C-alpha cells in the first residue's frame, strides 16, 4: 500500500512536471474546431501559402507551435524569400526552446533583402539567443543612492523602557533619530553550464551592501555574502526540471565600520517546477561569530549556529504579473539563553510590469509584505528578569524599477517596518525611503 502511495505521488509529480515542459495546447472547443477545419483544407491544398499562413497563426494561437512550424516550413520550402515566415518560424522555435533552429531561422530573416523591420526584430532575438547559448553567464545588478529613515537608530517608540526589571526613561541621546545614508548594493552572479544532458550547472553569487550614515556614523553598516555550489538535476526522466543545489556560504557584517559578525555555513535547496509554479524548499546553517567591542561587550553571547528552513513559491500570472511567497522558520542558538531565539514568518509580493510607451520601456511596480514572530528562550536580566522578549514585526512596502536604457535605470523603495514587542525596549517603528540609479548587465 505504501509503495502504491509513493508510486501515485511520483506519477502525479511527474505529470505536473511534464505539463510544465510542453507548451500548453488550447482546449478551447471553438478554436479546436476551427483548427481542425482549417487543417483539413490545408491537407487538400498544401500549396496554398496564404492558407498555410492562416493555419500557422491559428496553431500558434492555440499553442501548437509544432503544427505552426510545419506549416511555415512548407511555405518557405516553396517561397525561400518569405522573410516574415522565417521570422515567425524562429519565434515558434523560441517558444519550444529549440534555440539553435530559432537562430537559423532568424539568420535567414536577417538577410539583406529582408525588410528593415523584419531584420531589426530578428536581430533582437539573435542577441538574446546568443546570450542564452553561452555556457558561462555573468549577470550583475546593483544600485546606489540615498536612503532616509525615520528611526535610523532603531530606538523604542516610547521613551519608557525596562532596565533590570524596572521602568525607566531613556536619555534624550537614545531617543529616535531620523537620518540619511548613502548606500551601494550589488549582486554578481555566475552560472556555468556543465554542458551535460542533465543540464547541471555550477552557480556562484556574491552579494554586498554598504550604507554610510550622514549623522549616526556608529550605524554605518556593511554586509557581504558569497555562496558557491552545483545545481544538479534530480531525475530528468521521471522528474523533469527538478534539481537540488547544495552550496557553501560565507558572510561578514560590519557596524560602525568595525567588524560586527561573520559566518560560514552551508545550505541546500530544491527546485520543483509544478506547472506554472516553482516551489523551492531549502535549509541553511550558519555558524555565526559576533565580535565583542567596547560598544557591544556582550556580543559574543550570541555566538552559535543559526538554522533556517524556508519554502519559496513563485509564479507568473497573466498579464505581466509575477508573484512570490516565502515561508521560513529559524532557530538561533547562542551561548546565552537570553540571546537564543526561534522565529518564523513570511514574505510575499507581486511584481507588475507595465509599458511606458513614451520611453519604450517596461517599468515594474512591486508591492510586498512580510511578518516575523520571534520568541527568545529566556528573559534578559539586564532588561527584565521576569519577562521574555517576544517580537512581532510587520513589513510593508513598494518598489518601483524604472529602466531607462539597456543597463541603467532608477529604483525607488518605500517601506514601513513596525515591531511590537513584549518589552517596550524593542517596540519600534521605522519608515524608510531609498532611491537611486540602478545598473545591470
Amino acid at each position, binding site marked *: 500500500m505504501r509503495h502504491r502511495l509513493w508510486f501515485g505521488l511520483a506519477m502525479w509529480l511527474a505529470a505536473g512536471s511534464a505539463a510544465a*515542459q*510542453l507548451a500548453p495546447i488550447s482546449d478551447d472547443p471553438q478554436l479546436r474546431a476551427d483548427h481542425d477545419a482549417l487543417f483539413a483544407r490545408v491537407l*487538400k491544398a*498544401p*500549396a496554398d501559402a496564404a492558407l498555410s499562413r492562416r493555419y500557422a*497563426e491559428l496553431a500558434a494561437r492555440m499553442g501548437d507551435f509544432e503544427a505552426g512550424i*510545419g506549416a511555415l516550413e512548407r511555405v518557405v*520550402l*516553396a517561397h*525561400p524569400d518569405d522573410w*516574415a515566415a522565417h521570422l515567425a518560424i524562429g*519565434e*515558434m522555435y*523560441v517558444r*519550444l526552446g*529549440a*534555440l*539553435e533552429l530559432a*537562430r537559423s531561422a532568424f*539568420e535567414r530573416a536577417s*538577410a539583406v533583402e529582408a525588410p528593415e*523591420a*523584419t531584420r*531589426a526584430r530578428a536581430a533582437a532575438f539573435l*542577441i*538574446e539567443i*546568443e*546570450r*542564452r547559448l553561452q555556457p558561462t553567464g555573468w*549577470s550583475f*545588478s546593483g544600485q546606489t543612492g540615498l536612503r532616509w529613515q525615520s528611526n535610523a*537608530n*532603531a*530606538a523604542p517608540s516610547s521613551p519608557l523602557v525596562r532596565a533590570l526589571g524596572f521602568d525607566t526613561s531613556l536619555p534624550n541621546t537614545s531617543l529616535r533619530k531620523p537620518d540619511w545614508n548613502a548606500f551601494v548594493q550589488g549582486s554578481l552572479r555566475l*552560472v556555468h553550464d556543465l*554542458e551535460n544532458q542533465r*543540464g547541471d550547472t555550477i552557480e556562484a*553569487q556574491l*552579494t554586498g551592501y554598504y550604507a554610510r550614515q550622514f549623522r549616526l556614523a556608529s*550605524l554605518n*553598516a556593511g554586509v557581504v555574502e558569497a555562496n558557491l555550489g552545483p545545481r544538479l538535476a534530480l531525475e530528468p526522466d521521471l522528474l523533469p526540471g527538478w534539481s537540488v543545489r547544495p552550496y557553501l556560504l560565507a558572510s561578514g*557584517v560590519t557596524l560602525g565600520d568595525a567588524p560586527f559578525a561573520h*559566518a560560514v555555513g552551508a545550505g541546500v535547496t530544491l527546485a520543483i517546477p509544478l506547472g506554472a509554479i*516553482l516551489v523551492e524548499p531549502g535549509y*541553511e546553517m*550558519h555558524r*555565526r561569530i*559576533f565580535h565583542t567591542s567596547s560598544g557591544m561587550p556582550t*556580543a559574543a553571547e550570541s555566538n552559535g549556529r543559526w538554522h533556517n528552513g524556508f519554502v519559496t513559491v*513563485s509564479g507568473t500570472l497573466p498579464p505581466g504579473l509575477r508573484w512570490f511567497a*516565502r515561508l521560513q522558520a529559524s532557530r538561533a542558538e547562542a551561548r546565552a539563553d537570553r540571546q537564543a531565539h526561534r522565529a518564523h514568518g513570511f514574505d510575499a509580493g507581486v*511584481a507588475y510590469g507595465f509599458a511606458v510607451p513614451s520611453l519604450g520601456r517596461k517599468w515594474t511596480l512591486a*508591492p510586498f509584505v512580510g511578518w516575523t514572530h520571534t520568541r527568545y528562550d529566556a528573559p534578559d536580566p539586564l532588561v527584565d528578569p521576569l519577562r521574555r522578549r517576544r517580537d512581532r514585526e510587520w513589513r510593508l512596502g513598494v*518598489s518601483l524599477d524604472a*529602466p531607462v536604457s*539597456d543597463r541603467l*535605470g532608477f529604483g525607488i523603495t518605500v517601506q514601513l*517596518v513596525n515591531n511590537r514587542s513584549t518589552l517596550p525596549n524593542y517596540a519600534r517603528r521605522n519608515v524608510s525611503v*531609498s532611491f537611486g540609479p540602478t545598473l545591470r*548587465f
Partner: protein
Amino acid sequence: MYGMVRASLLVLVAAGFSAAAVAETVGTAGAVSPTAKARGAGAARVLNVGSSVLYGETLTTGPNGALQVLFVDRTTMTIGPNSQVVIDEFVFDRVSNSGRMAATLTRGALRFVGGQTSHTGGATLRTPVTTLGVRGGVASVRHDGASGTRVVNHFGRISVAGPEGETMLRRSGFAMGVGGTAAGSGPARSTRAEVDSFADALAPPRVAAKMSAQRSATRAAAQAAAAQADAAGVTSIQSANASSAAARHSVAGMPGQASPSRQAGDAGSRAGAARQAALLPSIAPPEAFPAPPQAFPPAPGGGSGSASGGNNGNNGNNGNNGNNGNHGNHGKGHNR
C-alpha cells in the same frame, strides 16, 4: 514489411480502433522542390504538391529534390535531397487524436516536427543502424553508410537504440551519433556548424547555397555591429551573456533585487518599432521571451538572500543596531 504492417493494422482494427484510424493515405506531399518520387506496391510515381502519401511507400528525392510530407496527425517530415524514407507504419485515431507512426530513413536527411502521434503513442524513426523513439518533439536525423547516423534533438525526448544499447537524448540542442564514423559521438551539444549543415542538407542545393551566403553575410554584419558596439561601450553579443537561468526566472528579481530578465525585455523594446513585421501577431514579442519548455530551473538566489546576520537586528540588546543589522532577516532583502 508491408505485410507485417498490414497485419498489425488489422489486429488494431479487431482490437477496437475505428475504421477511420486505418487509412491508406497517411498524408500529403505538402511541398516538393523540384521533384520527388514515391514507390509502393506498384510502379514508382512522381510526387507533386498535394499528392497523397500512402503507408508502406518509399519516398525518394534526387540530388536537387526536397520534399515535405504533411501527415494527417499534423506531423511534418522535411526530407532533403538524395534521401530515401519508407513509411513503415501509421495508425491514427482522429477521435482520440492518438496513434503511432514509424518510418525508416535509408539514406539522406530529414527533419521531424511532431504531431499527435509523437505526443501520444510515439513516433519511431529507423535508420540501418539505430531506432529512434521520438516523444513529442522536433528532431533532425541524417544517415549515410560511411558516417552512420547523426541525430539532433531540438525539442522533446529521443531514445536512441543502437548496437551499444539505448541512450536518451533529453536536452534541446544535444546530438549523438550511431554507427559508422559517427559511432560513440555524444550525447553532446550540437555545434553551430552541424546545425548549419543540417539546414543545408534539408534544402535543395540552389536554396542551400543561397542560405549559406545569407548566413555568412548576417554573421559578418553581426560581428561588425558587435565590434562597433564594444568600441562604443554598448552591450555586445559576447558581453551580454548574463545568466540564462537567472533570466528565465525573473521572479528572483522581486522587490529589492534587480530583475535579470529585463535584458530580454530591453531587447524587445528595441524591436518595438519592428513589430509590424511580424507575420503572426499572436506570438509575443521578445520582451515575453518565454522560458523554454525544457528549461532547467535556476538557482533561487542561492537559496536565500540571507546574510550572515540572520536576526542580527534583534540581537543588539541596547536596541540601537536593529534597523541596520537586520539586513539578512528575510531572504529578499527588502529592508535594505
